[in-house]
Structures are given as structure tokens and as C-alpha cells.
């Protein structure tokens, strides 16, 4: 498995962990509501970023990770939920930076759409 795929799989597993953690570690609201919101978003982002054409979606992990780390302080919870959320947040942020190999070529990618459009506007 390539490094890019590993990072996406770790993101997906982290999201699944956040969805299951409230039951496994026995904690309730507000921590459970926060984790069960971030979890599905992380799983989705990981699944979408598995493909090279949509690998850029991985950067959403920065937002999700930042929320997972900040939530205990903003919503006021601690204990196991804090430890779990902090660990998950670090994993999500770390994975966002791991792009991995892009073996396919996409003729300039998503950026080419805006750039070519602007050129036409300028002319």
C-alpha cells in the first residue's frame, strides 16, 4: 500500500473510532455528539481522498483535527473523551499533510479550470 493510501486508511479508521468511542469508552454528551459529527466527516473525507483526482480533499482533515483537539476545551469535557479526541485530532492533522504519490496525470488538475477561465476573461 502506498503512503498516500495508508494515510487515507488511517483517516478512515480514526473516523470510525470517533463514531464508536462514546460506546467503547462510555461517555455521553457533549463529547459523544462532537465525535459522532467529526467521525462520519473524517470517514467520508478519507474515502473521497483515496482517489488521486480528489486527493486535495485531505486538507479538510486539518479542520476536523483542529476541532477534535479543541472540542474538549470549548465544550468542557475531559477524561477518556479528551484523550481519545486529542489522539484522533493529531492523527487527522498528520494524515492531511501526507499526500502520497500521484501517479496519474490530470492536465493541470482542478487548478487548470480556474486559470484557463481567467485567461479567457483577460483577453
Amino acid at each position, binding site marked *: 500500500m502506498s503512503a498516500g493510501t495508508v494515510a487515507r486508511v488511517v483517516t478512515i479508521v480514526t473516523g470510525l473510532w470517533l463514531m464508536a468511542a462514546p460506546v467503547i469508552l462510555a461517555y455521553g454528551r457533549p463529547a459523544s455528539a462532537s465525535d459522532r459529527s467529526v467521525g462520519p466527516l473524517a470517514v467520508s473525507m478519507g474515502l473521497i481522498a483515496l482517489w488521486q483526482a480528489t486527493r486535495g480533499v485531505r486538507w479538510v482533515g486539518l479542520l476536523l483535527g483542529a476541532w477534535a483537539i479543541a472540542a474538549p476545551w470549548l465544550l468542557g469535557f475531559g477524561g477518556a473523551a479528551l484523550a481519545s479526541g486529542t489522539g484522533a485530532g493529531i492523527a487527522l492533522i498528520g494524515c492531511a499533510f501526507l499526500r502520497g504519490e500521484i501517479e496519474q496525470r490530470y492536465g493541470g488538475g482542478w487548478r487548470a479550470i480556474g*486559470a484557463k477561465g481567467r485567461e479567457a476573461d483577460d483577453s
Partner: protein
Amino acid sequence: MSRVALGAMREVPPGWSYNPSEWSQRLPVVGLALVGFAIAGYLALFQLGGFARVWEPFFGDGSRRVLTSGISRVLPIPDAAVGALGYLADAVTGVIGGRNRWRTMPWMVVVFGVAVGPLGAVSVLLVILQPVVLDAWCTLCLASAVVSVLMIGPAMDEVMGSLQHLARARARGMSLWRAILGAA
């Protein structure tokens, strides 16, 4: 180089290493859409009163609670029926057009992308609402959400190819309208 080889090369967008409109690229997405249609169709039949019980292997009466919740009845027809129609739209817009439709039928590719993207987004929103608002999980609803999100990545490369084609056409001074209808 033979004329056949030149013709085949033209089907790969400029600067690309493969053709995103190739059947091998599109049929897996269409297959996923049909799986999603089957799951959502089954759930919709339960919501419409077709059967008294719904299959739920893990979460007790979670599926029943999710599928009969207020959220599921926000629209005039049950939410799973909306999902089933969405999957059907994905499958139909995924299969129409030839293997170079990224340039011959950009409008169909754009409609395909618009059908796949929001369906996935709404599925994820519903996955969040299940435990956060209803305190329940629904196995087949989760399966349907995974299917809809899995379609996004492999569908969007073709959308990218078509949008690049439209951007090039505009840069050449062609009207966007003519380009999106597939005038070369």
C-alpha cells in the same frame, strides 16, 4: 501511426494519462449506484408500508427508529425514496454518452457530478443526524451512505476533465453554451 491509434489517443484529455470517460472508469460507479438504489429502494419500501419489519443486524430497533423519525418525513416522500431516485439519477447519467463524453457531452458529465456530489453530502449529514439527534443507528442507512461517498472520488475525475475542456474552449473564445453542449 495508424488512424485508429490517433483516434484512440484523442479520447485522452490533453495532459492526462488516462481517459476518465472510459467504460472501465464509469461502470464501477454505475454499479455502486445500482447497489445504492437497491438498498435505498428496500428502505423506501419499508417506509411506505411495504413490510412490517426492516432488517437490522446490529442496532436493535435502531433502523426502525431512524426510518420512522421526523427527519425521514421532512419531504413529501420518504427520505429513502429520495435517495433511491438520486441513485437512479447517478446510474442513468453515469451510463449515457460514449467513451469520449468528457468532450462530446460535457453537460451530461456535469449533471452526473451534480447528481453524485450532493447525494453523498446529504448521506453524510444523515449519518451524523442518526446518533446526534435520534440516538439510533441504522445499518443499511450507513451502508447506503458509504456507497454514495465511495462514488464521489471516481466520478469527479471525469467532471474535472469536462470542466478543463470547457475552460479551454472559453479560452479559445468559444461560447460556453456551445462548448457544454458538446460542439468541438
